């Protein structure tokens, strides 16, 4: 208990720090040392900035066509060049950030909510429910994720929102299993038994004891999953199963321009680069979070 003894021996008599603020401080200390994670954070913040202020930053609208300026290479007027309709690629990428980040965040939030709910039910109440839910997760995980999302989109009809729903469904078991395993661990903690011994009910135990002690791994997995979700959305877009023209979705832009890859490579290069950067950014943050939170998860 090095923390405890430190806290008690603290001669300054400073006001008590909650383990949350304490953990945040510790977390920030170790996260700050992680250079790649900081780089990832900067990349992601930059794209969030682009997404929010796309309207101000973009030199043109996303669908301003000028057929005389089609397939122009990068220049002072069009930094990233123009596509086959003469649309400014930079503007489209900036607006595309909105679409991709929205899919990333919303689908992961959806997966977390549903996955956590199912994970808690499976882990806490166990028995038949656990078997049913766990086997359901196993079945979902048995499919390659992109195949399953294509199947779901095929049922719902191709659109960006349906792609979002499909990606959320595909990722539910990832969080479900994670939460279930945390619940199984925390459920056995003595403070849960102590809570039950004074007459606390299941709902309170779940919200007071189990969820607050399960949050760290959910955050890490969530961050990593935003990257996967964005990639999957781009993949679906590329296959024509996600965003539909004329939406400036990056995957869709890639597939629309793929015939010009030799004559006008910038039409493919910049949307591809945007995807890579965002995905790398979220992955770096996720890895950094995991490293920073890991020692706490162990104890």
């Amino acid at each position: 208990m090095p923390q405890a003894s430190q806290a008690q021996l603290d001669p300054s008599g400073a006001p008590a720090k909650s383990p949350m603020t304490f953990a945040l401080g510790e977390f920030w200390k170790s996260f700050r040392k992680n250079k790649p994670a900081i780089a990832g954070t900067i990349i992601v913040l930059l794209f969030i900035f682009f997404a929010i202020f796309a309207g101000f930053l973009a030199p043109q609208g996303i669908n301003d066509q000028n057929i005389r300026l089609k397939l122009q290479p990068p220049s002072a007027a069009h930094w990233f060049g123009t596509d086959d309709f003469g649309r400014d690629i930079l503007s489209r990428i900036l607006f595309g950030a909105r679409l991709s980040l929205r899919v990333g965040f919303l689908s992961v939030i959806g997966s977390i909510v549903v996955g956590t709910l199912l994970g808690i039910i499976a882990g806490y109440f166990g028995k038949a429910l656990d078997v049913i839910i766990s086997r359901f997760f196993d079945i979902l995980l048995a499919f390659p994720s992109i195949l399953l999302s294509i199947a779901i989109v095929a049922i719902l009809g191709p659109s960006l929102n349906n792609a979002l729903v499909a990606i959320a469904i595909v990722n539910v078991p990832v969080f479900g299993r994670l939460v279930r395993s945390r619940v199984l661990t925390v459920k056995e903690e003595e403070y849960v038994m102590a809570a039950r011994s004074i007459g606390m009910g299941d709902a309170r135990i779940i919200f007071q004891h189990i969820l607050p002690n399960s949050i760290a791994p959910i955050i890490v997995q969530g961050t990593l999953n935003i990257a996967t979700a964005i990639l999957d959305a781009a993949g679906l877009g590329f296959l024509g199963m996600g965003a539909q023209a004329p939406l400036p979705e990056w995957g869709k832009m890639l597939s629309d321009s793929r015939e010009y890859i030799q004559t006008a490579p910038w039409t493919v290069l910049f949307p591809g680069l945007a995807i890579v950067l965002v995905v790398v950014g979220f992955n770096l943050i996720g890895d950094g979070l995991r490293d920073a939170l890991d020692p706490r998860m162990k104890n």
Partner: protein
Amino acid sequence: MNDTLLKVSGLRTSFFTDDGEIPAVNGIDFTVHEGEILGLVGESGCGKSVTSLSIMGLLPSPPGKIVGGHIFYKDEDISHAKESRMRQLRGNDIAMIFQEPMTSLNPVFTIGDQLKEAIRLHSHLSKKELEERSIELLKQVGLPRAKELLKEYPHELSGGMRQRVMIAMAMSCNPKVLIADEPTTALDVTIQAQILDLMVKLNKETHTAIIMITHDLGVVAQMCHRVAVMYSGKIVEEGTVKEIFNRPQHPYTKGLIESIPDLHDKKDSLYTIKGSVPKPGSITRGCLFAPRCEFVMDKCLEQTPELLGEEHKSRCFLHQG
């Protein structure tokens, strides 16, 4: 003083594992009267904790299950009561404190949060009353700086302080029976004495009956009124502390008393009871203690002795003619 609060009769609790049924508690009877401190003594693995969890309805199930007998709280059989009924009883009527104070508090909430939550479970108090009641409880268990303590987190407290907080939480709704499952085992000796004193004090002030589960006869001598000695899932001897210490009947109890270190008697080595507790269910015939008993007779291997006697009961043929 002699009103029966809790009556355990013929309680049998088993664990169902891949290797079959393991009878952890194999037919025990005891009663707890109002305001009394009953010691439940025995070696590790003899079923003390399983008994307490059975009473609380907190057995890990599966694999644990009450397979026989009854537990009466006042006149109500709670051995198979519904979870909702048990939830009302827990905290309000029967509360429990655990062995490990270091892990019995949730690390992410303040002492105040957890204590107030415990009070709120069984009563409707305003915010201000809650605060006052919490401070009062912390003072009652002898914690200084009660007001500041409410805002502190478990990791800032020592083991002894945490155990006091746990006692405060258990006492928050004035339970009639408090089950203390080795509450001092994880604490060092000086703190142990303080906690025991505190429990005796609470027993006197609030008239809460205490079931003190321990493997330490010293603890029993210090605070209990009556003792039940458990061996391998059964009670082998029961009586007042005075009786048990002065005139132990069962060879197992004698062994336990002799193996207490004595300052004045300079022996080179301590007395030990040879062998170890048999695996539950491994002995099906005769007295469970027979394989380790110094006074074993032929009869002991053939027949199972009953717990007989009036005030001082024992389960041994030596005292049953």
